[in-house]
């Protein structure tokens, strides 16, 4: 068969596929399953024609046309359009807690790397209040003093900023740090360890200093509720980053590249969940933790309940036996 005969015989299929691929959103949105099946059939036919054209050394323009056609058809036929509410329910009902349990080693390391500096620096700051100056400058300490002192403004605020302004700030600042913590895992996990340890040390120094100053009640009642989500979140961000670093350092029987890609696919589930936790933490921190009208003991009880809830969620949610019931 000559190229011209080939073109004449199959041009109708190509033209139909070309028309179907033309981006016309109004029309595409209304496509039914029958249309999509038709597009898939046309696409497979075009693939076959391309293979034939290549094996017979048909003219370049013919192969180019078929190549472009199949490339665009491939994008449409294999497009994933399945992120809906069911996927989201599955993510938080099963996938996220299961992924955290699957990464228990990384979570544990991140927890130690976070908690150790927190405790050590916390105790040192409590025993030797001057020590805090090696991590913060005096102005910042002064601010903390005002924020958690017995003044009239909301707790944990430099000024009487409105709740919404602080919500925006917490989202941008905290989630940005968490994402960088995850990204730092690409450097053999060192970046993640650094971010986690630094945040542990900073939190410890403030806690130790304020306890020594006698603002412990204000401070702990402020942090306990959102801390359940925020502190867990930073540890999980570190764990996700460590999973990347671990894959690079110890790829096992895969190439480093394949191990990294697999680890990233698994760890990104933790990042989804962690991001949601930071959003919850930011909302709590902005609208609940800072409220002076809530009695301290109520905040402590709610905070404790949040901690228990978060821990139970990671321990028990989405285990195979339960998810089925």
């Amino acid at each position, binding site marked *: 068969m*000559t*190229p*011209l*005969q080939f073109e004449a015989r199959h041009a109708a299929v190509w033209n139909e596929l*070309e028309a179907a*691929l033309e*981006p016309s*959103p109004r029309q595409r949105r209304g496509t039914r399953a029958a249309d999509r099946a038709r597009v898939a059939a046309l*696409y*497979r036919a075009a*693939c*076959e024609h391309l*293979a034939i054209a290549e094996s*017979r*050394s*048909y*003219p*370049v*323009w013919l192969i*180019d*046309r078929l*190549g*472009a056609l*199949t*490339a*665009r058809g*491939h*994008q449409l036929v*294999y*497009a*994933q359009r399945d992120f809906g509410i069911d996927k989201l329910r599955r993510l938080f009902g099963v996938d996220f807690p299961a992924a955290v349990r699957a990464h228990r080693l990384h979570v544990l390391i991140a927890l130690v790397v976070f908690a150790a500096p927190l405790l050590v620096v916390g105790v040192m700051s409590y025993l030797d209040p001057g020590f805090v100056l090696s991590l913060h400058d005096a102005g910042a300490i002064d601010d903390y003093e005002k924020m958690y002192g017995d003044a009239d403004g909301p707790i944990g605020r430099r000024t009487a*900023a*409105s709740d*919404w*302004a*602080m*919500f*925006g*700030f917490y*989202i*941008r600042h905290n*989630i*940005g740090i968490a*994402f960088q913590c*995850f*990204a*730092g*895992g*690409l*450097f053999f996990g060192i*970046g993640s360890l650094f971010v986690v340890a630094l945040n542990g040390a900073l939190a410890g120094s403030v806690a130790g200093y304020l306890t020594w100053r006698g603002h412990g009640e204000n401070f702990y009642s402020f942090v306990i509720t959102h801390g359940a989500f925020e502190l867990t979140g930073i540890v999980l961000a570190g764990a996700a980053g460590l999973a990347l670093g671990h894959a690079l350092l110890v790829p096992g029987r895969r190439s480093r*590249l394949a191990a*990294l*890609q697999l680890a*990233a*696919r698994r760890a*990104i*589930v933790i*990042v*989804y969940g962690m991001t949601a936790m930071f959003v919850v933490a930011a909302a709590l921190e902005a609208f609940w933790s800072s409220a002076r009208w809530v009695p301290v003991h109520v905040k402590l009880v709610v905070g404790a309940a949040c901690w228990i809830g978060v821990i139970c969620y990671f321990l028990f949610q989405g285990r195979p036996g339960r998810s089925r019931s």
Partner: protein
Amino acid sequence: MPASSAASRLDTRYAAETPEGIALLLRPAGLVPRLYAYSVDVLIRVVFFSVAFVFLAMLGRLGEGLALLLFFLLEWLYPVAFELGRSGATPGKRMLGLTVVMDTGLPITPAASLTRNLLRGADFLPSLYAFGVLSMLFRRDFKRLGDIAAGTLVVHAPQTGAPAAAPPAAPARAPAVALTARAQAAIVAWAGRVARLTEARADELAEIAVPVVVPRAMGGDRVAALVGVAHWLLGRR
């Protein structure tokens, strides 16, 4: 056609095999177009944020919070939202004809898009995307670190409706000798390009083939004679 090692070192095309058994030829986009696309995206975001900020500033503290929220979304999720859209590319990339796909040639998945965009944090280090740029310069497929981990590829979008370069009209004539498939393909490909070549260059190339293909076409128009052979090969007899 077996590619020589020199050609395979020069050529950045990237073949991804599909389940249908064909090879999609992806053309990874290099540093420069991606840099332009990124600049356009930054510009779009800056303009959008500035305009939004003017209105949000009227809302006082609430507006400040919403502005920070908007900043966060623009900073981290702007690329994700667009990459998962129909075009698979941010406005800047679309402007330069780039699109993001999986390195299997498949459309990008939500997980991969989020991975590559969150790992921007690593690409950016130590500053100004230094690691990302180095990674792109050292790799044939121009992946930055985020692309490596997510298994994604930034490619030049396949052009649609490529100019069907059929050879110009000429009376068909049979070749004088039997031609191999490669020789046939070369003559037809040359004939398709004649319209875009200068006359002198077309003639110069024709000179290589004419003595073998049409020995009696002396003195006449070699180019027209060879185009005629191309027509014969295509099936006009």
